[in-house]
């Protein structure tokens, strides 16, 4: 079946997380601008913990609390997006969408662009919307005594779609479901009905494939000799070509490295999915059990067969709490008997903390022998026996402490291994970081009034 170009909406993704490459969107926008049809650029930069950190920054400074790299992400592409009529949709508003919008308008001014029409989507912040009693009633028992640092519901695609229909050049959101960043533009373009569950599910899975950036284009995929990826240092970011009937093709920015094939698409399709018959978002329940992927050409994979069911009655929310301190310390041992010296160093730290009366949750690993497969209590670490003669290991000690002083004490014990530990230890690094715990809960839709507005 052939479609006229205008019947296809192109959606590119410029970032899949807050730490993503600042220049990735450039090739995406160049590709979007070179084709004649309508196109949209999305940025996904908001992980669970990112939002809580943003909320803390906003408390310290009312003008902060949005994506710290906002300008670095958008500046390289803003002029071209405006010139080619490519709207930008991003959850880079984090805990302060209005401040992010103001920042983007200033960025436009500094580039000599006419005043930008920037819209914000709001209503996700439960701390602002709900009474403390309402919030408490949502939380599991063990968290009721804690004061939440952040509490945000996952909003859907509809407010984004409305803002785009009204002519927004940039839509800034806080917490929305990641795939909704792509579904919003599709709703605005195709006018799919709010209960057209199959198409909403197709758009949601297209958004799901886009939302992690390069992860569908050969990023996070290479396994030399088993799964080789060409030009991976210049891995391209993804573009979806969405058809009105919900069928779509996944491809990537032109003249970039990486690859889009049935393997990369399958890996990303299942990424962070639980029951594939019930992938829940605020917009729809998507079912990929009958989905099929077909390689149409190099770096072009078609996805069909996604089905949808009615959206969930409630919205998921993530609540973050202050959770004390994480102390980490590392030191290296190499050459003869390295494993034995590393292990002794770990025992010394344990012994010292015991003598100091610090009974903290503690994890001790020898990087180079076993550092990630074992459980925190050491279970599963026995498998490391096969690496008993590893000539280069790095002790890592990690502990959880309620107070900063206890966390600092752990770091100091690792540091003291320089002079008081086994022979030949080198390269100590220590770090103490504030921790945020999170949990999720369900919020009745009626408790929230999501909305959007232009920022003057």
């Amino acid at each position, binding site marked *: 079946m052939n479609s006229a170009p205008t019947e296809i909406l192109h959606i590119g993704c410029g970032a899949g997380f807050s730490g993503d490459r600042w220049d990735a969107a450039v090739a995406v926008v160049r590709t979007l601008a070179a084709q004649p049809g309508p196109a949209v650029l999305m940025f996904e930069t908001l992980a*669970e*913990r990112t939002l809580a950190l943003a909320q803390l920054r906003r408390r310290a400074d009312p003008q902060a609390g949005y994506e710290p790299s906002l300008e670095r992400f958008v500046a390289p592409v803003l002029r071209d997006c405006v010139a080619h009529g490519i709207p930008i949709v991003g959850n880079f508003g984090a805990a302060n969408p209005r401040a992010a919008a103001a920042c983007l308008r200033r960025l436009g001014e500094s580039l000599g662009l006419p005043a930008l029409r920037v819209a914000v989507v709001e209503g996700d912040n439960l701390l602002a919307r709900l009474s403390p009693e309402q919030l408490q009633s949502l939380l599991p028992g063990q968290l009721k005594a804690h004061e939440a640092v952040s509490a945000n519901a996952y909003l859907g695609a509809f407010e984004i779609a409305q803002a785009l229909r009204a002519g927004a050049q940039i839509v800034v959101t806080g917490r929305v479901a990641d795939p909704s960043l792509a579904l919003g533009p599709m709703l605005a373009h195709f006018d799919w009905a709010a209960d057209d569950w199959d198409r909403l599910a197709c758009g949601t899975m297209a958004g799901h494939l886009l939302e992690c950036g390069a992860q569908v284009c050969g990023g*996070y995929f290479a*396994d030399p000799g*088993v*799964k080789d990826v060409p030009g991976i240092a210049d891995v391209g970011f993804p573009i979806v070509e969405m058809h009105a009937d919900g069928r779509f093709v996944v491809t990537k920015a032109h003249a970039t490295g990486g690859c889009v094939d049935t*393997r990369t698409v*399958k*890996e*990303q*399709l*299942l*990424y*962070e*999915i*639980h*029951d*594939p*018959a019930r992938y829940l978002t605020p917009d729809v329940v998507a079912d*990929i*059990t*009958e*989905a*099929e*992927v077909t390689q149409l050409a190099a770096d072009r994979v078609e996805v069909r*067969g996604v089905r949808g069911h009615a959206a969930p009655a409630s919205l998921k929310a993530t609540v*973050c709490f202050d*959770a004390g301190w*994480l102390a980490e310390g590392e030191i290296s041992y190499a050459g003869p008997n390295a494993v034995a010296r590393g292990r002794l160093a770990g025992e010394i730290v344990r012994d010292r903390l015991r003598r100091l009366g610090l009974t903290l*949750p*503690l*994890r001790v*690993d020898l*990087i180079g022998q076993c*550092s*990630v*497969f*074992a*459980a*925190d209590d050491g*279970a*599963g*670490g026995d498998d490391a026996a096969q690496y008993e003669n590893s000539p280069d290991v790095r002790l*890592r000690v*990690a*502990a*959880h402490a309620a107070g900063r002083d206890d966390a600092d004490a752990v770091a100091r014990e690792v540091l003291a291994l320089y002079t008081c530990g086994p022979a030949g230890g080198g390269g100590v690094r220590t770090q103490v970081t504030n*921790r*945020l*715990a*999170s*949990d*999720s809960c369900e919020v009745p839709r009626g408790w929230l009034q999501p909305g959007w507005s232009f920022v003057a």
Partner: protein
Amino acid sequence: MSRVTLPLHLLAHARSGDKGNRSNISVIAFDPRAWDVLLAQVTEARVAELFAARRPTRTARYVLPKLHAMNFVLDDILDGGVNASLNLDTHGKALSSLMLTLPITLDAALTRELGLELAASSI
């Protein structure tokens, strides 16, 4: 008929993701001809055993035959998850590689068909 044992790594690829204290790990066949073997041997019971040290409270397998893929969901294996675990890899991102160590036994004829006879002879 002679049988050969290979790591799952040669027959399938995998990716792990996390939500809270729950990990999902996909297992995707490189070649549809290996699918029946994977269905029979990459089972909930064997995966629960492979991840026993992480003490999953539930191990569920979802099958997607049209993609020659399966999705494992392991509950409570991340020591509290990304915001609570003391693991270097708080997300459990590396657990897909643990999954790929699972030994799979198949007919020598199938290993030849899949072009894995060299790999099989070196193990």
